């Protein structure tokens, strides 16, 4: 009962407004951001089952996460983004059946996003590039925190033409230290390179008009991560995004496609739902 209350408390505490950008896929950044002095809020809730296949201590791990992402436009081209993940993790030893529950706020990511290039070629057509820079800062909540400040630098690109939207990005996370605990990609003591590409197709409306107030997209994403300890992983995401004038809702699933993991459990299928607001 206490664990259920803890789970509910974590999920409720994380149910704060979370930022959102239009035509941005679920799992990866894009070169879109709030305008000057505008807040965007996005809330994601997700579940992943992981398998720890170590010979001496195999386990099944159920991981629930709520992630609150708050963006603020400092200028028309520069935004600040804070990502706050809250996690509940239940590990079940496959041999003994013992269960262990861990919950709390993981390390917080704070990024600047500077759109340094833009070419608006049509009413809705555009190509944009943005530089990402910042760091993951520790919450020192054991055992979820890396307990180190880890700089992040990257670049994101967006190209929208007609009903098609293409996004891509690369981010490098420099892990400066902390305990060598690993659960998810980039959480351990080794540097991580993240690369994402995604494609959104607007299924409705076929064409924008003066009465257009919403749009629906099919979303496909491929996410790749390489860690300097040799762990690599590729995941495919599929989802739907519904976008209105001031809010959007999304649902997506993510599958493992490729993995060579020696130092952390294997994540299986992930399911994520989210909502976005613009103020």
């Amino acid at each position, binding site marked *: 009962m206490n664990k259920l209350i803890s789970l509910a408390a974590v999920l409720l505490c994380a149910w704060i407004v979370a930022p959102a950008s239009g*035509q941005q896929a679920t799992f990866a950044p894009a070169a879109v951001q709030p305008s000057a002095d*505008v807040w965007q809020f996005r809330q994601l809730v997700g579940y992943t089952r992981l398998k720890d296949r170590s010979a001496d201590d195999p386990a099944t791990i159920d991981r629930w996460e709520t992630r609150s992402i708050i963006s603020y436009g400092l200028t028309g081209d520069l935004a600040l983004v804070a990502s706050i993940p809250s996690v509940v993790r239940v590990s079940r030893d496959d041999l003994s059946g013992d269960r262990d529950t861990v919950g709390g706020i993981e390390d917080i990511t704070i990024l600047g996003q500077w759109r340094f290039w833009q070419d608006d070629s049509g009413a809705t057509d555009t190509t944009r590039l943005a530089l990402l820079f910042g760091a993951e800062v520790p919450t020192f909540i054991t055992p979820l925190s890396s307990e180190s400040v880890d700089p992040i630098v990257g670049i994101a690109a967006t190209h929208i033409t007609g009903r098609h939207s293409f996004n891509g990005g690369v981010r490098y996370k420099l892990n400066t230290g902390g305990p060598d605990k690993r659960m998810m990609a980039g959480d351990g003591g080794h540097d991580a390179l993240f690369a994402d590409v995604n494609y959104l197709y607007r299924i409705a409306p076929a064409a924008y*008009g003066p009465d257009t107030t919403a749009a629906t997209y099919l979303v496909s994403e491929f996410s790749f991560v390489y860690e300097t300890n040799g762990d690599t992983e590729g995941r495919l995401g599929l989802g739907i995004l519904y976008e209105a004038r001031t809010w959007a809702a999304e649902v997506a699933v993510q599958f493992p496609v490729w993995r060579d993991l020696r130092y952390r459990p294997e994540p299986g299928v992930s399911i994520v739902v989210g909502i976005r607001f613009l103020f």
Partner: protein
Amino acid sequence: MKSQVRKYKTTGGFSTIGLPLLAAMVFSAAACGTTPSSENATSRGDQEGRTVEGSEIQVSLPEGANQARMSVRGLSCPLCAHNVDVQLLRMKSIKQVEVDLGTGLVLVDFDPNEPPSADALARAVRNSGFTVEKIEFHAKTGVNGDE
């Protein structure tokens, strides 16, 4: 649960479901193709606002002008376009904003006693993250705003 580092068995390789899905995604994206842009206009403009080279900005207001018609580029999506509403409605004399995503036409109704300048309108669009191609001022008349 042990917390020290442990070695895992190597499990490299493609999952049985992931590879066909990835292949399907790649082929379907290639089949959709892209719509080539019809123009190659740049978006770099003056410091007051992002404008298109050769853009038309009407700087003088006709008598009784109470509406600005702007041609804006890069609106992208409904949620993105809402940034235009937010920036323009923050201006003192702006009463109403209508955005046509299909054409990029943005209609801005304002108090004729306190008309905004073209520079201010262009700056607001710039701050919203988009590009202004044209600004014209009109005196909107009639119930439906027809001239």
